[in-house]
């Protein structure tokens, strides 16, 4: 029996070996983007484009499994020890990890990196993720020189204490803001650290020519054996997506950073030869129509429900070449806590009319819809306008620059409806609380916030807070269930029309070796350390 198992295993190994040859070391790839890279400072740069590049140069204490949402230790030697009350986390660092400048990383660097994000002078967009650490607020307000809740116990041990238990805290410790940076390199580069980054990561920044390209080279002293596989990565910027696509055809580019341009989309997906290099995955985001609960007829929940029933989501998906899946609730399918049984509002204009009549709007009403002016959003807004005209609601479209849409949407009692295309909510980390606090809670329903329906349900806030205090592993299933029920309640209040979850498409060259988990990773986007090339 034993021998049989051994032989079977050997056979399996051989089989797997032929199917997945180990990635080859060496070679380099070129990736294209339209927009310039702004900064590689992990405390500052936080968008779809620079996040995977920051991931090349830096590491956090924690990370996620490739293509998944399970937390794993990275610069930490193991997952942290958590105190009984769920407030204190003790991290033990991996031994002998060196920064690119040759210095060994210590617990002091962890403390420094977190305090740097909290320091108002850094102007970090991520500051508020870390203000729940004990003593952080006093440090932010300038009342304390250091954050009392971050204690260095030994060169390889750091203890972080929170004001209250937070089930999402470990996710926050895997974000780019928690990447570890060396103090002396930041001091040396000053505000230019974002253009001269030094980290512990698998690649080093070799050169950066503003507006042209960035070159990364392999970090030969990386702590993970054999990683990364590539010797170098070149990121070319300024290429229009259509031009980038042509360059890929010519073999000058290996990966389309901005995805397949809409004009070529159908051609690519219908061509079997090209299709082999196309990958797609549903993003952890939701594109929605926000319904302002404080404006005119939309104050009435029945009106909001009617609007939900009046909008034909499949028509909108056709406008975007089917690059999405219909959304039935707030949470996207890949988000923990997603409720498969949530039905949402079915498309039913007749029922919508009845509801409107019941709410006292038998002849409809007039309202406004804000949208960004970049294609395809105005076309989608027109589709919504037509759908609502069917039930007697006359919509005036306001198609504006993105910054102006944000401004109107985040001002109370201003924008009745906002189409979030181009501004869809994408996860910061794979935890449902991230789809609640920043966009649907009382604390975000303020001037300049991102809660565009201006919904504030104190009872739901209390439930979410209670859920976030459930940190024990045994409580996780119950916590996710609680969040599912919070989002179900919001769905009943119809504060959004959840329309679709974007499906991202990317395309690679023949020589680039990498799968969907590496090229469309839900948390890293592009996992450069796992890519390789055919020799």
């Amino acid at each position, binding site marked *: 029996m034993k021998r049989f198992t051994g032989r079977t295993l050997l056979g399996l190994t051989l089989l797997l070996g032929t199917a997945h040859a180990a990635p080859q070391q060496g070679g380099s790839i070129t990736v294209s983007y339209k927009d310039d890279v702004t900064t590689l*400072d992990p405390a500052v740069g936080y968008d779809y484009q620079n996040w995977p590049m920051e991931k090349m140069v830096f590491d956090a204490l924690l990370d996620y499994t490739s293509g998944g949402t399970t937390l794993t230790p990275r610069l930490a030697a193991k997952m942290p020890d958590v105190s009984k009350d769920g407030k204190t986390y003790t991290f033990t660092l991996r031994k002998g990890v060196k920064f690119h400048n040759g210095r060994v990383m210590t617990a002091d660097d962890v403390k420094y990196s977190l305090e740097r994000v909290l320091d108002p002078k850094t*102007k970090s967009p991520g500051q508020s993720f870390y203000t729940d650490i004990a003593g952080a607020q006093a440090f932010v307000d300038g009342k304390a020189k250091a954050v009392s809740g971050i204690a260095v116990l030994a060169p390889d041990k750091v203890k972080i204490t929170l004001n209250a238990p937070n089930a999402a805290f470990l996710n926050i410790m895997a974000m780019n803001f928690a990447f570890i940076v060396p103090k002396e390199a930041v001091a040396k580069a000053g505000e230019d650290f974002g253009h001269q980054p030094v980290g512990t990561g698998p690649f080093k920044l070799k050169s950066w020519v503003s507006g042209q390209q960035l070159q990364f080279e392999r970090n030969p002293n990386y702590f993970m054996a054999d990683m990364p596989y590539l010797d170098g990565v070149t990121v070319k910027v*300024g290429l*229009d997506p259509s*031009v980038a696509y042509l360059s890929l055809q010519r073999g000058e580019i290996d990966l389309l950073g901005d995805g397949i341009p809409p004009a070529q989309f159908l051609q690519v997906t219908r061509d079997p030869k090209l299709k082999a290099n196309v990958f797609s995955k549903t993003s952890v985001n939701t594109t929605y129509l926000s319904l302002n609960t404080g404006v005119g007829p939309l104050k009435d929940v029945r009106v909001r429900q009617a609007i939900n029933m009046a909008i034909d989501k499949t028509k909108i998906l056709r406008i975007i070449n089917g690059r999405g899946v219909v959304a039935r609730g707030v949470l996207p399918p890949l988000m923990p806590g997603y409720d498969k049984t949530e039905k949402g509002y079915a498309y039913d204009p007749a029922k919508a009319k009845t509801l409107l009549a019941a709410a006292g709007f038998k002849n409809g009403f007039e309202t406004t819809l804000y949208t960004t002016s970049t294609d395809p959003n105005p076309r989608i807004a027109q589709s919504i306008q037509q759908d609502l005209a069917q039930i007697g609601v006359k919509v005036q479209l306001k198609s504006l620059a993105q910054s102006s849409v944000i401004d109107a949407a985040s001002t109370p009692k201003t924008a009745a409806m906002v189409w979030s295309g181009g501004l869809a909510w994408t996860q910061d980390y794979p935890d449902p609380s991230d789809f609640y606090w920043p966009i649907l809670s009382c604390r*975000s329903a303020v001037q300049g916030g991102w809660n565009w329906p201006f919904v504030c349900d104190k009872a739901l806030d209390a439930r979410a807070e209670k859920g976030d205090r459930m940190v024990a592993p045994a409580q996780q299933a119950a916590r996710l269930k609680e969040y599912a029920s919070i989002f179900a309640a919001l769905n009943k209040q119809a504060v959004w029309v959840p329309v679709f979850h974007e499906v991202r498409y990317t395309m690679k060259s023949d020589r680039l070796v990498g799968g969907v988990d590496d090229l469309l990773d839900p948390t890293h986007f592009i996992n450069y350390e796992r890519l390789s090339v055919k020799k």
Partner: protein
Amino acid sequence: MLTFTVSRVLQSLGVLLVASVFTFSLIFLLPADPARLVAGPSASVQTVDSIRRELGLDRPFVAQYALYLTHLLQGDLGRSYKQQTAVRPLIASRVWPTFQLMLGAVALELLMGLPLGIWAALKRGRWPDRLVMGFAFLGASAPQFWLGLSLVYLLAYGLNLFPLGGYGGLSHLFLPALTLGLGGAGWYARVIRSSLLEVLARDYVRTARAKGLSQSRVVVRHALRNAAPPIISMIGLDIGVFMGGVVVVESVFGWPGLGRLVWDAIRVVDIPVIVGVVIFSAVVITLANLLADLVQLALDPRIRYS
């Protein structure tokens, strides 16, 4: 000559001051919150407020502008909100590519516009004339974005004659310069044609012909020389036109110049970069026009006395 130059320089400085106030006010009036755009959607309102304070955006307009002007007079254009680097070296790194592009465009405009204009003038009213005028009309009305992408598709991708975009030598420069200059080439052809026609009808041209000089000699030595001044002032004006054109052309071809820098900055309301580029462009345009006037003055003594 000296008084003329001094008065023009003073005039230019006034223009620059007005340009800086105007741009600054315009951005200030925009319904957009730069602090929110720097912070992104995930930042809390408290963080946005803190960033606003750090950037000095919580102060009144006059205080912000006064501070900006004080720094400006010391040659400091401030720091980019989004890239967090100093604006001056950022602009400096993009000047040369844009200058190359403009130089290439002017060269192509002259190379195409001059011969076409002369040809049209000499064949006045016949088919070459109509052809050139048609080309001028099309060149002026074709949208640059479409023109650029079409050239990429036909000449770079289809016929494989040029690189698909990006920055490099002459082969990289040709298509973006052509896209930028094609509209102007038609315009040059028209101006050359009309000023040549005017000159060719003059008495001295008839005299030159009567002396038995060849057609080409008459056109080049006598007529063109007198038709040249409007071309010089056109090149000066072109610089201003190009400053607008490079935004589109550089975006299409991935040319790392000022146009793309300002385009990226406008998207995220990166005020220091926008104002910096506008002021720099205003300086360049003013200088170009000043230079064009002085060259004309040197070429044509009559202007001096009028």
